[in-house]
């Protein structure tokens, strides 16, 4: 995948680990050893095991797992939670263990010179027996702590790496790091074992654990630089989120779809674009959930399917809200035109939510996706993590060529902007602001289309009301200024007319 024509010396083998092959531009170097280094709990063993599991599942390649730390039985049990039946693969001759873990109660006495010849012989025998194309070795640190003589261990690991190369297998070795941003590995193994280094991190960031993977070097071939977040899914293992490696190659559609509100469609120049992402921002109770409900309703009216990812209210609450606006969620769900997934933001990390949303989109195949609210997810992440999440989600939705509508809550009732808005406004195609407007001792609601990429749109701030049939957008606030800033101020009509005559020869539209 990574320009094999230009660099014939190093080809890559896809690992099959979701997202990793994307950031490594094709996988790990074929026929070579890649060092996977990480601190305690950074998922090194899972990476190593998944390298073999995906080889079996996706590429029909057998694998040999050499374990120095945990026993084969422990590894079988640990990875079964990821949905991998290692015993089954062993029976089928697709997976073989070389169990080099210490035996409990085993006393070892060292008397004189030794080498690790038996280990090399066992690995070679296992590779021959299974016809393995992949070997995983976990972990080098355990070998060093086992034998006092580092010089011998280094020399022998080099011999093992050479033997693996000689057999033409693609291998992954794990090693320990003492700190997240220090030397590559504890025993300095990388420089003699391998030219290829991948680093796994598990960093505490603003009270949240954040896992990342970085391809540090692949000698003689290219890869994406920097850290990419990943998560561990219960039935899949490691899933890397490629983020900036995502190509901006999605097509732009000029097909319009209804927002579910005819007046809003008119303001947007005829509706939203088919594959656009719309951000609806406003204070609490201002009509965001209504906007997403109408967005879903607009899809249903057209026979389209909608997915609603709800992070603030339960399914029942949402259904009750919708019925108050004349939209029957229960019926939509029965007809298969809607799926409501209500989750607590705190129930998982952002990476997990992202993958959950992707899964729901993949399985339900909606035409529209509404996330209410996106800002509820801010709570469970750092700002950087949140931004990455939104970029990734937006990109995914656009690739599916479906419409996405996200809501964001502003923290002040009047005016103001949300963190969500600040961080994602450049990513979204359209922004709709909902605002409270205080006028003559009365709270009114206002709506404006702030941005609509690729289309003309109404720039006025219009008043709207909500009743049992939904949202009704009326005339513009003609004689008020400062709404968006949160300081509405009444402007005398005479002044407006004077300005209108200056700038709009066709005359004023209806006032409020």
């Amino acid at each position, binding site marked *: 995948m990574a320009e094999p024509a230009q660099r014939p010396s190093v080809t890559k083998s896809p690992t099959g680990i979701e997202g990793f092959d994307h950031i490594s531009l094709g996988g790990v170097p074929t026929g070579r050893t890649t060092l996977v280094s990480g601190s305690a709990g950074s998922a090194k063993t899972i990476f190593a095991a998944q390298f073999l599991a995906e080889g079996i599942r996706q590429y029909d390649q057998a694998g040999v797992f050499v374990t120095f730390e945990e026993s084969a039985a422990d590894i079988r049990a640990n990875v079964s939670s990821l949905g991998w039946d290692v015993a089954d693969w062993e029976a089928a001759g697709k997976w073989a263990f070389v169990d080099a873990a210490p035996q409990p109660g085993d006393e*070892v*006495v060292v008397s*004189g010179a030794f080498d690790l010849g038996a280990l090399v012989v066992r690995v070679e025998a296992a590779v021959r027996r299974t016809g393995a194309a992949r070997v995983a070795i976990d972990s080098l640190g355990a070998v060093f702590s086992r034998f006092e003589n580092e010089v011998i261990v280094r020399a022998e690991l080099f011999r093992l790496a050479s033997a693996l190369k000689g057999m033409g297998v693609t291998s992954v070795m794990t090693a320990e790091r003492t700190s997240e941003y220090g030397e590559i590995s504890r025993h300095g193994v990388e420089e003699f074992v391998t030219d290829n280094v991948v680093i796994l991190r598990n960093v505490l960031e603003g009270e949240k654990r954040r896992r990342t993977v970085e391809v540090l070097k692949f000698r003689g071939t290219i890869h994406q630089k920097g850290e990419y977040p990943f998560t561990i899914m219960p039935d899949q293992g490691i899933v890397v989120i490629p983020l900036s490696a995502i190509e901006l190659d999605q097509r732009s559609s000029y097909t319009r779809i209804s927002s579910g509100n005819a007046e809003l469609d008119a303001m947007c120049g005829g509706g939203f674009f088919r594959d656009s992402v719309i951000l609806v921002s406003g204070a609490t109770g201002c009509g965001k959930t209504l906007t997403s409900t109408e967005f879903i309703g607009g899809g249903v009216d057209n026979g389209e399917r909608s997915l609603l990812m709800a992070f603030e209210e339960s399914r029942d609450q949402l259904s009750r809200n919708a019925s108050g606006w004349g939209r029957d969620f229960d019926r939509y769900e029965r007809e298969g035109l809607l799926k409501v997934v209500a989750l607590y933001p705190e129930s998982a990390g952002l990476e997990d939510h992202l993958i959950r949303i992707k899964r729901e989109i993949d399985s339900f195949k909606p035409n529209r996706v509404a996330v209410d609210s996106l800002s509820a997810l801010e709570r469970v992440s750092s700002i950087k993590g949140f931004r990455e999440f939104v970029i990734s989600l937006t990109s995914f939705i656009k690739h599916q060529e479906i419409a996405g509508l996200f809501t964001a809550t502003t923290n002040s009732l009047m005016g103001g902007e949300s963190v969500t808005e600040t961080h994602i406004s450049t990513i979204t195609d359209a922004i709709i602001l909902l605002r409270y407007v205080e006028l003559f001792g009365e709270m009114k609601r206002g709506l404006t289309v702030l941005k609509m990429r690729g289309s003309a749109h109404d720039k006025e701030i219009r008043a709207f009301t909500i009743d049992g049939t939904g949202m009704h957008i009326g005339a513009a606030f003609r004689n008020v200024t400062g709404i968006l800033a949160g300081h509405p101020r009444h402007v005398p009509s005479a002044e407006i007319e004077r300005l209108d005559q200056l700038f709009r020869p066709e005359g004023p539209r209806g006032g409020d």
Partner: protein
Amino acid sequence: MGKYLLKLYITGRTPQGNRAIANLQRICQAELDGQYEMEVIDVIEDPQAAEDARIIATPTLIKALPPPLRRIIGDLSNKEKVLIGLDLSSPGDEEGHRRG
């Protein structure tokens, strides 16, 4: 004292392996008075034997009998350590023991 069952695992007929065999024979003849059985296993010829006994380093001497089972790795050039491994040294000298 019961009969000793000793298994010596080597990787091919290397000088290191041959040295281990010679050292072991010398120690056994001196210390075990014929009360032993010694088996040399070349893991290149029988990788499964290494797999079954979970041998990593060679040479490895396994004292299979009498219990407890002990592993001694190296060319057995340090006689004191070998005697510790075979439980033939005076008690209290635990210096050579490491968990593995």
